[in-house]
């Protein structure tokens, strides 16, 4: 089996998949901790549906490159959703559900009415599940991924203390002079960029899992914000690498294999927390 692995690692597409997978899972897990704690677990799913709707629109309008429009629309949706909670009339989970289902439906409708592609269900399926696209990355996509990941990680580290403060207690943070609006905006923009990037590469199913699972697993066992953040990043990267290698070896779909590994790890961490008995829930 090891020989087979070494053989596969010689192929650039496998190396690209590993690089992109590692970076995307690192970025999404860093953001995952604050999103899960703010009850925004489903924002990954919601925003990727928005991105799907935006792609449908740009395909119909006939844009050759759908990235810019998709990014703009998704960022706008993220900003709307993550805006300071108290001011919105429709609360977090309901707003995410509404935007998510709405844009999925409209996107699918538009694609149906103005369909140019003969393989419509195939297109939709690959948007949702990422199909094998992580194995068909080009050089440019990988470099784009590297660049955006560097920016994301740098922004996260720079804003780390403020993100903690705003997530833990937004009112206190703004009373202490932190620009909570700016922090929320930064988080929203980063989330949108990571999700648009990731759904192109790995599909919306996987991006949701990458946001939720590592953070939740880490929260079973660790008790400090820093501990949870570091553990979540490590878990996310570990699971993705394991998942990609397993899918290459056994010929399984990449996205779902990674999610399966994430579930196993979550179960393991849940057991650890039960054994330690530390966490009273």
């Amino acid at each position: 089996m090891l020989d087979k692995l070494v053989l596969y690692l010689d192929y650039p597409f496998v190396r690209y998949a590993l690089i992109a997978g590692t970076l995307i899972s690192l970025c999404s897990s860093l953001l995952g901790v604050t999103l899960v704690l703010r009850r925004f677990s489903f924002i990954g799913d919601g925003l990727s549906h928005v991105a799907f709707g935006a792609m449908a629109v740009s395909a119909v309008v006939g844009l050759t490159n759908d990235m810019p429009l998709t990014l703009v629309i998704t960022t706008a949706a993220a900003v709307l959703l993550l805006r300071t909670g108290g001011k919105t009339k429709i609360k977090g989970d309901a707003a995410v559900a509404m935007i998510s289902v709405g844009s999925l439906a409209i996107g699918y409708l538009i694609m149906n009415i103005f369909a140019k592609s003969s393989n419509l269900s195939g297109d939709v399926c690959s948007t949702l599940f990422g199909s094998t696209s992580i194995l068909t990355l080009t050089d440019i996509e990988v470099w784009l991924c590297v660049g955006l990941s560097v920016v994301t990680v740098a922004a996260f580290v720079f804003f780390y203390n403020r993100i903690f403060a705003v997530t833990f207690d937004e009112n206190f943070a703004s009373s202490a002079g932190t620009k909570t609006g700016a922090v929320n905006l930064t988080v929203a923009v980063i989330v949108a960029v990571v999700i648009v990037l990731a759904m192109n590469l790995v599909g919306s199913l996987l991006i949701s899992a990458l946001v939720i699972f590592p953070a939740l697993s880490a929260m079973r066992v660790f008790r400090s914000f820093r501990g949870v953040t570091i553990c979540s990043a490590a878990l996310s990267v570990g699971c993705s690498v394991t998942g990609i290698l397993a899918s290459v070896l056994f010929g399984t779909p990449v996205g779902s294999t990674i999610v399966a590994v994430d579930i196993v790890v979550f179960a393991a961490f849940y057991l650890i927390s039960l054994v330690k008995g530390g966490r009273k829930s």
Partner: protein
Amino acid sequence: MALIKCENLSLGYDGKAIVENLSFEVSAGDYLCIVGENGSGKSTLMKTLLGLQRPLGGTIERGDGLQKNETGYLPQQTVVQKDFPASVKEVVLSGCQGRLGLRPFYSKSDKALAVENMEKMGITALADRCYRELSGGQQQRVLLARALCATEKLLLLDEPVSGLDPKVTAEMYSLIESLNKSGVAVIMISHDISAAVKYASHILHIGKTVFYGTKAEYQKSSYALMFEEGGDGNA
């Protein structure tokens, strides 16, 4: 010069006033208790004093070199915090965020301040514990230490004893009293009129009519009687 001086404040949401014509001031060393029924606008007043919300009318002036971010706020607990993985140290240190300026990380002096305030609140032994696993009284001490990291001048306490048992409540009150004696001005929202009368130097009663004055004046006024005999003494 007072730390905070409010004149003719009107407060409310969406242009609808809940309270009008509030005038009061808090000077160094004062202990102001804000009492009133539910929905009378106590929390709205607190948010306005913190700058989280704009007053509909009137003015708030800060004096004595009090900066806008130098008020130590002790909020009520939120749902998010019940499930939040954060160590006591991290929570207390986040009280220094007003000092960060453009720096991304806390400095040594920020950390020293956090340690000092944890000692003051008697929670040094809990520094590495998880916030969500502490008892209600311990959590309030942590949040108080955090508030002290933000200020040495003025504390704003939003129902600091709600949900605490009588023994811990008494400890909390004496802790606040000792902070006040050491020179920190305190503004406290409370349902507990007897504690307000016992500890406060000034009382602001808001509702259909507004009373502001010293404790002695309050006790002589009809407001205190209304509260004690009105049937909803702890409303």
